[in-house]
């Protein structure tokens, strides 16, 4: 299967996505941001649709929309009570806009499907390069702010007490999530993005008890899901997002079951 260029590109892209999602996912889970991540991916859909309408690459439309909205959401919901309601409203608005842009762009339904659910064949070598440098950028920022991000994510109370710049940190982190969402959506699609950003890290939490350990495990689980998903999809011709979703969900439920057994002993 590696004799096809598109499969080589898909594997390269999938590997990048798994690494970035595993690492970012650990913080997404620690910060209880699954819901927000889901919203950002819906906004990403809208951005991609806008990109198509405006004649850009969908990824650029996604980047524009998710980054701007993550800053807005960050400002809006500095207070956590407001966050859920505010994000629901925003996400409804953006899904509606996405549908509008797609219909204005006069693209057929299959185009929408590939944005929503991802696709393997559409990835070119230049897409892979763009994903690569975006991911490197995200990881670089995480590397630089790592100690602060770790404290704020795993002990928000302690970080605030210490007077860390927690608001700036949350907005920075949201922008990083927005970038990751846009990158990852290329393969798994914007609807299923939160699978890779949340499930591997949520699973890892039950087996690893250090931040580094969780990252390693989450990246590993994401890689297995992506590689196996791409292979199975190639062999069976069924959509890759289905396999990735199924594999990651199985891991997660196995972890939950294992946890139950542990505590029952």
């Amino acid at each position, binding site marked *: 299967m590696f004799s096809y260029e598109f499969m080589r590109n898909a594997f390269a892209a999938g590997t990048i996505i798994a690494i970035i999602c595993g690492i970012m996912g650990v913080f997404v889970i620690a910060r209880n941001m699954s819901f927000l991540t889901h919203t950002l991916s819906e906004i990403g859909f809208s951005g991609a649709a806008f990109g198509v309408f405006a004649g850009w690459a969908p990824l650029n439309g996604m980047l524009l929309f998710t980054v701007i909205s993550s800053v807005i959401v960050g400002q809006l919901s500095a207070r956590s009570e407001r966050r859920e309601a505010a994000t629901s409203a925003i996400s409804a608005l953006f899904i509606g806009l996405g549908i509008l842009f797609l219909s204005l762009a006069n693209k057929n339904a299959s185009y929408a499907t590939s944005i929503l659910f991802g696709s393997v064949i559409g990835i070119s070598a230049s897409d892979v390069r763009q994903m690569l440098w975006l991911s490197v950028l995200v990881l670089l920022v995480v590397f630089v702010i*790592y100690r602060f991000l770790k404290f704020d994510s795993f002990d928000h*109370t*302690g970080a605030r*007490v210490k007077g860390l710049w927690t608001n700036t940190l949350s907005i920075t982190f949201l922008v990083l999530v927005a970038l990751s969402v846009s990158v990852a959506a290329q393969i798994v699609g914007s609807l299923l993005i939160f699978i890779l950003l949340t499930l591997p890290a949520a699973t890892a939490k039950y087996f690893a*008890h250090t931040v*580094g350990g969780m990252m390693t495990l989450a990246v590993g689980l994401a890689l297995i899901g992506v590689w196996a998903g791409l292979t199975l999809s190639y062999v069976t011709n069924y959509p890759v997002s289905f396999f990735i979703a199924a594999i990651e969900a199985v891991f997660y439920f196995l972890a939950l079951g294992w946890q139950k057994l542990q505590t029952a002993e």
Partner: protein
Amino acid sequence: MSEPAILKLENLGVTFPNHPVFADLNLTIRQGEFWSIVGKNGVGKTTLMRAILHQLRPTTGKVTYLPNANSVKIGYVPQFRNIDSDYPLTIKDFVGLNLTGWKWPWLSRKEHAEIDHILAETGLTKLAKRPIGQASGGERQKAYLAQALVESPNLLILDESTASLDPVTKTELLDLVIELNQRLHLTVLFVTHDIPMARKYSSQYLMLTPDGVEQGPISGLTQAKVWEGEKNV
């Protein structure tokens, strides 16, 4: 000669919308003092601590760190913390969170040694690898204390950190704190409802009542006085 002052509160007052908490509070805290802060629920002890931490802008007056703004390093063990039972980090990792800064993501050998040292002092060495979500209430309090201490603060604020502890653990924890207080001149603000403990460990007290504040050497604090203060609502 008395120790140098490290914290000065002048005419300090905090008012939430339509709700005055305290006003005109004047207080000087000197290095090495051990203050107990007492007063009934809702009287404003936590609010006062947040003002001292500059987390909350006072309505009137000011909080000054002495001799300069950077000379006071505060370790704070807050009253409430969100740690649920599936919180993943080990006690050691939790304590290490407080070592922040523009540094490498991984901890240096020296930082590992600092953490191990504070775990030993707080009696947590054996529990270092236990996920904190699975630790008992008392073990968690010790971990919170260790986290606050790992950066070697010179002012430690304990906000009811001993409230959920059994008498033995409570004494253990405070024995450690007083030992640091005496050996390293660590200044302590201890928010508590436990008058006997306050009398046993502290050198000064500050009592907040709805009518005002009272302060003095700890010998002046009696249970009867606290009841008196709490009655005047």
